[in-house]
């Protein structure tokens, strides 16, 4: 369902150009759980942004759900992003002025979901993630683990086909991190396609497939039995 062919990303600032990604080719099947690891500066975040259609590669092609995303215009990209991709970030990226339920309902604002249904869905999703009693707390009133659960609820609420996580436990203590990883296990068991970018080996260990990047290239792509 996701396939990359010769993806390149070159950043040029004046006369200096940096090759962040250099010929990345791999594909991910539906329901697969993949960890992308590597030292910092290896291009793993750039790769995640390209997978999430937040960034555009300078070369190569990306097929998502049978669509060559390079053919989409900006508005279509935004729609694709909202419908097919759920993002989970290291620092949660919740909107600080909105309570949990509004944050979770937000992605549905950009589609034809009636307001009442939006809140209903958001509430259900938060309940599923054990946040049913924190619906009207703003992010500053929540712990890190709770915020990440709100963020996960937001990522899931549009029922995306691909879940992308960028160091999802990076800002959490180990217990909250464990809980978040447990959620990923559950989602994986339900058949969600998940790509996690991390430098935490313990997360990578749990993944059936690990792609190791180095200097913008794939160093290793291994599947565990």
């Amino acid at each position: 369902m996701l396939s990359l062919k010769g993806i390149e990303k070159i950043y040029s600032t004046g006369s200096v150009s940096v090759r962040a990604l250099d010929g990345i080719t791999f594909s991910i099947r539906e329901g697969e759980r993949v960890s992308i690891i590597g030292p910092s500066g290896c291009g793993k975040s750039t790769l995640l942004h390209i997978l999430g259609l937040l960034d555009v590669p300078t070369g190569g092609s990306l097929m998502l759900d049978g669509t060559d995303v390079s053919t989409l215009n900006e508005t279509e990209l935004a729609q694709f992003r909202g419908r097919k991709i759920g993002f989970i970030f290291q620092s949660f990226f919740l909107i600080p002025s909105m309570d949990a339920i509004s944050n979770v309902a937000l992605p549905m604002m950009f589609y034809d979901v009636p307001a009442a249904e939006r809140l209903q869905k958001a509430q259900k999703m938060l309940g599923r993630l054990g946040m049913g009693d924190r619906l009207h707390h703003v992010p500053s009133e929540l712990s890190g683990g709770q915020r990440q659960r709100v963020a996960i609820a937001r990522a899931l609420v549009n029922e995306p086909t691909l879940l992308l996580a960028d160091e999802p436990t990076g800002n959490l203590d180990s217990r909250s991190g464990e809980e978040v990883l447990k959620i990923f296990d559950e989602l994986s068991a339900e058949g969600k396609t998940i790509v996690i970018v991390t430098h935490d080996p313990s997360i990578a260990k749990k993944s059936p497939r690990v792609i190791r990047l180095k200097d913008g290239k794939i160093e290793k792509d291994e599947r565990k039995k």
Partner: protein
Amino acid sequence: MVDHAELFLYSMNNMRRRKMRSWLTVIGIVIGIAAIVTLISVAQGLSNSINEQLKSFGSNTVVVIPGDIRQQLSPFGGAARPPSVGKLFKNDEERIGRIAGVDLISSVINSRASIDFKGNLVTASISGVEPSVFEGSQNIELEQGRFLTDTDKHTAVIGYNIAYDTFGKQPVQVSSVLSIGKEGTRFRVVGVLKKAGSTGSTDSAIYIPLEDARDLAGSSITPNEVSGIRFVAKEGFEVQEVVDEVNYELLSAHHVREEDKDFSFLTAAFLQEQVATITALLTLFLGGVAGISLVVGGVGIANTMFMSVLERTREIGILKSIGASNEAIQEAFLIESGLIGLSGGIIGVLLGLLFSIIGGALGVPTAVGIELALFAIFFSFAVGIISGYLPARNASKLPAIVALRYE
């Protein structure tokens, strides 16, 4: 499709987050709009009040006065030539009277003289008229007493303000006696006119019989000279055609060409035209002055919106990452700036209305039409949108990953 109502609430929410700043920005627009509404309402009120006065002039009434007023009245005319001085005489009246279409012709002698009423001395302008003809050509409404008659001598009819204002606490009434002129000729008041309007011309008028006025003027006018000749265009005649005939007759009588003519016509149409030109200029000028403050208000909106975009850069990235299109981002910010403009406009119009009412109570003629109010509100909304356009566009064009990385 984005849910516009929800986007609206989102923008409202953002404004509420920065309440102080939003209100300060709104005030910038309020000042501009209130100034525009107030000043235009004054210009409009002035125009209305002058037109109201012109109504009493009568649409068929024509007054011939000495001198060429064209250059003096035209706001665009240079003062290249001094106005020709000329005089009108009783025989001019006779000539005009013979023209077909001229009716109710009479002469007027105007002069300024000192008037003494029970020890209060004022200087006012006095009109000597031919009573019966004047009464027939002018809409005269009396509060008390009667108008002058052709056989009257040393009698006066006075305007409302002369009766109740000019001489302080003591009202001048029917049977009161005014001493007029250097020699203190005694005039008995026989009538007081009804109040004409806020600054109505007849409110300050003093009418006396023509020959009395000639006596008062003494040597300042030559025998048979008059200050003006009034007539009415007969029913069925075009006012302008009659005026053209009279013009031709007087040109030949005075042996002058059109360019050098030494007399002028005052007609309702002519006066209205002059007033319209002047008030249009006044409106433009006052509106322009107030418009400057609105431009400043608009710059304030742009400033606020740039700040708003800057401090919400991260948020813009988040919205994009969860599926917000560039258009939705732009719309959100335009709603915000449009709302600032709109609320500024509504408050500004209300404030301007209040100022106009206060001004009206203080005697400044004002008029606020629904058109002016609606225009001002729409205009302020437009200012909001225009001022917000660039910041909103900047926000929408922010690359998502750049916005997300922003600290």
